[in-house]
């Protein structure tokens, strides 16, 4: 990610906020936590032996960019059961993806609200992305890997530009 002078936001600041965001969302809404976390592009991002749900959300305003989230399907199923208070057999097929979308929305919203507390930012709707699109990301964003009791989760945040306020 570009330096603070170019973007107004430091990569280190985004990384710290990302860790806080994931912990806050997981603890508050899903009653779980982060067992382990690592900064940067973890090899697990490209592990095709696991079934992943990949989501992206775009944002606009003084900061323009997107946030991607990748979560293994079993973890998303477990989080969906917790959020909706359902037994695994009661869960509908689309609900793990919907939960992954909401997770992306909340982590991205938390990040932006903390990075630009005085800005008027707009978040788009979370969308599912294919593995190829996720793999095609250029380096330069801020990425973090999380191990949670339910499985693995990764978040990637990048700015494409910063508009004059």
């Amino acid at each position: 990610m570009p330096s603070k002078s170019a973007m107004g936001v430091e990569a280190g600041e985004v990384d710290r906020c990302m860790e806080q965001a994931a912990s806050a969302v997981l603890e508050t809404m899903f009653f779980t936590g982060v067992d382990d976390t690592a900064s940067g592009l973890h090899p697990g991002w490209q592990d095709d032996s696991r079934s992943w749900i990949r989501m992206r959300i775009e944002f606009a305003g003084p900061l323009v960019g997107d946030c991607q989230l990748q979560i293994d399907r079993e973890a998303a199923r477990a989080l969906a059961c917790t959020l909706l208070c359902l037994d695994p057999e009661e869960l509908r097929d689309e609900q793990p993806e919907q939960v992954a979308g909401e997770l992306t929305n909340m982590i991205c919203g938390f990040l932006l609200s903390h990075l630009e507390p005085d800005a008027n930012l707009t978040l788009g709707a979370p969308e599912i992305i294919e593995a190829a699109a996720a793999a095609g990301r250029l380096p330069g964003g801020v990425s973090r890997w999380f191990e949670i009791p339910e499985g693995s989760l990764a978040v990637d945040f990048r700015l494409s530009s910063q508009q004059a306020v």
Partner: protein
Amino acid sequence: MPFSVLIVDDSPVMRGFIRRVIHFTGIAVENYLEASDGRQALSLLRKQPVDLVLTDINMPGMNGEELLRQMKFEGFLEKIPTLVVSTDATEQRIEKMLQLGARGYVTKPFSPEILRERLEAVLKMDAVLKMDAPEETNHAQ
């Protein structure tokens, strides 16, 4: 008197979560209505009145800010307590939504306890306002 709630959020799982939290507050809700954006919410409100609205802000179609404007324009907002539930925690946005007429604001992520507290506060405020209203009328007479 049956109590009805309208939940406006483009995420079906978030609507389900909010519904579950309301259920656990002990508020006896007879009828839950759900809408995935402001336009759908307005359409429902025009057909049947509700006692409480909870709305997200960022939604495709009509967003929560525009919904509040329209609710104000059509006279719904002064009658129906409305609570905003959003990921946007910026001061600017919170102030704007409260100025538009929202009675409360909850930022996501939120614990069930926080939502319950805000809901109770909003409903308590509404009850006080409704109790005060006839008195004002009487004073005017």
